[in-house]
């Protein structure tokens, strides 16, 4: 279980976190929704170690993540797909994927080869152009590559920051579908941050609503989806 307790983060005025607590169950999809500037990205960046919190604790399977370096957190099985199709455009598609598995080469070389092959099966669009620079990919393909880069490290929990941002609905459906399948079939734990609340709540088991850095609702996704007044108040639709 990913457990976040009394997490307070100072950032610029409108995307801080104020005493946030919730937890994400293993093998389930938990989504964090909220308007722009609610602190969703800050939350994921703090879990990944890119931002240091002012106070509070983040534990994954009973080990404390606060104070660990981002590269160590990845090695502990917590992988982040940051906002905005985070790939390295100068590197080839294959290099971007391999990059995510470099740290496992020494201990599990054969599994790395398997994992890379699995990524190409999962995202066949990428398989035909392995040697092409990833700058040649479309936005949706870049997002797939960014997810593949994270998945190839064989994380136990995947943190996704706005995977649907700027993508066509059909692509969003494909990407969300793949994430859902990974969760249901191989037991991957997912923490999904989304501005597009309906898409996220449709696939999620549990939903957390953030507003101005505070948790205002923490319920099963179905209940949250049905609560029209809450959504109107905080999301505007």
């Amino acid at each position: 279980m990913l457990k976040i307790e009394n997490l307070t983060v100072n950032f610029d005025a409108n995307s801080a976190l104020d005493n946030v607590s919730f937890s994400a169950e293993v093998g389930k999809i938990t989504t964090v929704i909220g308007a722009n500037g609610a602190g969703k990205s800050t939350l994921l960046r703090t879990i990944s170690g890119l931002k240091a919190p002012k106070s509070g604790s983040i534990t994954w399977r009973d080990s404390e993540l606060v104070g660990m370096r981002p590269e160590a957190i990845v090695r502990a099985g917590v992988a982040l797909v940051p906002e905005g199709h985070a790939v390295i455009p100068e590197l080839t598609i294959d290099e971007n994927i391999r990059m995510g598995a470099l740290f496992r080469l020494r201990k599990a070389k054969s599994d790395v080869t398997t994992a890379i092959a699995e990524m190409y099966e999962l995202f066949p669009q990428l398989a035909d152009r392995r040697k092409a620079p990833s700058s040649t990919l479309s936005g949706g393909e870049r997002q797939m590559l960014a997810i593949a880069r994270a998945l190839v490290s064989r994380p136990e929990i995947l943190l996704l920051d706005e995977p649907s941002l700027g993508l066509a609905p059909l692509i969003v459906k494909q990407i969300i579908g793949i994430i859902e399948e990974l969760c249901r079939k191989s037991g991957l734990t997912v923490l999904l941050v989304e501005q597009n609340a309906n898409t996220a709540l449709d696939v999620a088991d549990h939903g957390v609503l953030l507003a101005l850095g505070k948790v205002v609702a923490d319920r099963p996704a179905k209940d949250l989806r049905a609560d029209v007044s809450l959504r109107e108040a905080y999301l505007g639709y």
Partner: protein
Amino acid sequence: MQTFLTALFTGTSHGAIYALVALGLVLVWRGAGLINFAQMGQAMFSAYIASTIINHHINYWWAFIVAIIAGGALGGAIDVLVIRPLKKKSGSSILSSPSMRDAIPVIASLGILGILQSAAGMIWAGEERGFPAPVSTLGLSIGKRAMPFTRFDIFVIVLIWLILIATTLLLNKTSVGLAMRASALNMEVARLSGIRTRSIRTLGWILSGSLASVAGLMVAPATNVSPNSLDLLMIIGFTACVIGGLNSLWGSVTGAFILGLTISFINIYDAPGDVFLGIFAILIAVMIFRPSGLFAKGKARNV
């Protein structure tokens, strides 16, 4: 014709040495985002160490290997002992502005250069020492014909091309190379991929220090070794990077060969006194027409 060929070979061999200096600078620039002005100070220091070893009548090649290791160790030590602690303090007020954050490590590298030169002055009494070459630096003749190059020219060109090819293979074909490129291009994504970017950066410093040491040893038979003997090499190597584009590895190497040939041809056909004028002319032309370097993609940085 003979004169032309002499200029060509001398230029290529000197260009190769500048290329190593430039490559060292580029490796640190791409990894750590700073121009390491101490680089040739490190090389000078390791050349003194090599010279001490040779003076004890130990084989040249042992001295060569020790110098490469010493250069690398100095590079690594500078990163771990000076640059890392400086980065850690980035929360303090003087480092809060981005321009200061970029400038301070560069100033630190100038300070390290001063320390290395003074230390060399203290340890070796600042004496100018001759330095041997592993093969003859005198004119070579095959049969009765005098060749336009020396054995040493050929040695330098071959050795350095092997090093350039090996470095390229290391960066492009190995896992460590991929980690180095990823860390240089996008540190955040690299860290999120589990790459230990700090260690990778130190590796860049080590590699750069070793390359600079080789360059120092190759130029030392001509310049001798003294605390300031490699300053000129640093200036030319840096100019080569600016001409070729600091972000482009092969651009900087090409810039180095352009400079090597220019200097050599001016030396032979014109007068040695005009060498700096020539370098300056090229530099200014590049700064006017291609400010980010001849081979750089992307835009120049606003300074």
